[in-house]
C-alpha cells in the first residue's frame, strides 16, 4: 500500500500541489483527471521519485519511500524520457543492470527490434516499448502519465491489452492520469480529480456512477447539490452530485459516462473560478 499524506509541492513559490491525501491498495486502479496544469504530472513525478523536494510523506507499506524502493515502482512519463541515441537492446541491457529483478516480458504482438535506435521509433512505438521496459522489472505499483494520446487506435489496443494482462497476472496497482476516458473507462476502481493542486473529488467509481447524474427540468429545484448548470431557453440542465433517490420533483434523471462526469466537474470548477 502506498499512502500519500499531506503531499505538497512548490515550484518558484507557486504551489503546484497542496496537501494531497490518498491511499492506493494492492490491485487498485486510480484514475487521476483534471484540466491541464492541475498538477497530475507533478503528482506522478513526486510518487515516482523524480521530484524529491516535496512536503508531506509518501509511505510504501508504512515506510518512507527511498531510491531502493523504486525497484517496485514503474513509471511511464509522458515526456517518454529515455536515451534517444540508445539502441533498444542497449536500453534493455541498461535496465537489466539497474533493476534487481528485470526479466523482459514476453509480448508476442509487438516485436522488439534490438538494433533500432529509440529515436527511430514513432511516439506510439516508444510508448509501447517504454511500457514493456517498465513492466519488465516487475513493479507492484505502476504510474502512467497521460500517454494514451500518443498511440494510434491499433497500438492503443495492444497497450491496453498488455496492461490488463499484467494487471491480472501481477496484481498491479495502477495510478494513471489521462485526458481520454472512453477506452479506459472500465479500468479504474477509484477516481481522483485534481484542480489547481487540490483534490476536488476522490471517490469510488461505483459510488460516483450511482450518485453523479444529469438532471433536466423546466426549472432545477434549489435544494439540489448542483455542480454545474446550463441554462437552455426552454429548460435547464444540471449536473448533480451527490444525488440520492430521495430527491423528488418534476425532472428527468440521466446517469452518465465517466467522460461526462469528469468534463462537468472540471467545467464546474472553471465556472466557479469565473464567478
Amino acid at each position, binding site marked *: 500500500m502506498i499512502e500519500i499524506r499531506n503531499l505538497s509541492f512548490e515550484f518558484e513559490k507557486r504551489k503546484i500541489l497542496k496537501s494531497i491525501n490518498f491511499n492506493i491498495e494492492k490491485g487498485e486502479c486510480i484514475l487521476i483527471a483534471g484540466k491541464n496544469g492541475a498538477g497530475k504530472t507533478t503528482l506522478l513525478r513526486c510518487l515516482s521519485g523524480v521530484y524529491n523536494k516535496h512536503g508531506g510523506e509518501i509511505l510504501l507499506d508504512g515506510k518512507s519511500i527511498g531510491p531502493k524502493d523504486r525497484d517496485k515502482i514503474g513509471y511511464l512519463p509522458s515526456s517518454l524520457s529515455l536515451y534517444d541515441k540508445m539502441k533498444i537492446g542497449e536500453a534493455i541491457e541498461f535496465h537489466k543492470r539497474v533493476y534487481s529483478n528485470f526479466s523482459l516480458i514476453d509480448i508476442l*504482438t509487438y516485436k522488439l527490434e534490438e538494433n533500432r535506435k529509440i529515436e527511430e521509433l514513432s511516439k506510439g512505438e516508444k510508448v509501447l516499448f517504454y511500457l514493456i521496459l517498465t513492466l519488465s522489472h516487475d513493479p507492484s505499483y505502476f504510474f502512467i502519465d497521460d500517454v494514451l494520446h500518443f498511440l494510434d487506435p491499433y497500438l492503443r*489496443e495492444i497497450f491496453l491489452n498488455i496492461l*490488463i*494482462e499484467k494487471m*491480472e497476472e501481477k496484481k498491479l496497482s495502477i495510478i494513471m492520469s489521462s485526458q481520454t476516458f472512453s477506452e*479506459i473507462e*472500465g479500468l479504474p*476502481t477509484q477516481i481522483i480529480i485534481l484542480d489547481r493542486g487540490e483534490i476536488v473529488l476522490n471517490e469510488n467509481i461505483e459510488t460516483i*456512477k450511482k450518485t453523479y447524474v444529469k438532471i433536466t427540468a423546466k426549472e432545477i429545484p434549489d435544494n439540489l447539490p448542483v455542480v454545474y448548470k446550463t441554462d437552455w431557453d426552454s429548460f435547464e440542465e444540471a449536473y448533480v452530485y451527490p444525488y440520492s433517490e430521495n430527491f423528488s420533483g418534476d425532472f428527468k434523471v440521466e446517469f452518465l*459516462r465517466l467522460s461526462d462526469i469528469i468534463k462537468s466537474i472540471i467545467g464546474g470548477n472553471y465556472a466557479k473560478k469565473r464567478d
Partner: protein
Amino acid sequence: MNRKIYYFRNKPELIIFKNLKKYKKSLDISVLLYYINNTMKVHENLRIDFSSPVPIYAQVKRHIKYLILAGDLKKGDDLPSVRKLAAFLRINPNTVAKAYRELVFEGIIDSRPGKGFWVKERKGENGERKKILKEEFEKFIEKAIKLGFSSEEIKEFLENFIGGVNDRD
C-alpha cells in the same frame, strides 16, 4: 440453435485469422480477442453499458447468467478466463474476478484449479428468466406508453408479434 457471433473489431485483421495456424506463434491475447475461441461464445448482449449506474461486475454477472439461460453456455462449458474477458471487455480484471466469485458463491459456475471456470448448473430457471423478461418488458411498455399507445393496442401488438415468431419457426 446456437448463434455464434464473432466479434471483429478491426476488419483487416481477418486475414490473420484465415492463416491462424501460420501466425499462431505471433499471436497473443490482443489478436486472439478478434478470434473468439470455441469456449468463449460471446453473445451480442455481453456488452458493458458504461453509462449505467449498475456496477460493472453486476453487469458481467447478469450477462453470464443470461448466456447460460439462453443456452449459449451449456453445462460443463468453459468460461473465458478472467484475463481474456477483462481484456475483451476492457475492464479491470478484478471486476471480472469479482463477478466470477459471486457466481461461484451462487453455485452457478465453479472453478477447476489451473483450468479456470466452467458452467456448473443452469440454475434459477424460472425466477431468473422471469426477472430478465420483466426488465425488458418494463422498458418496452414505458416507451409504448410514451408513444401514446393504449394498453389494448399494446396487447394486440404483442399477440400479433408472438404469432409472427411462431410462424417463423
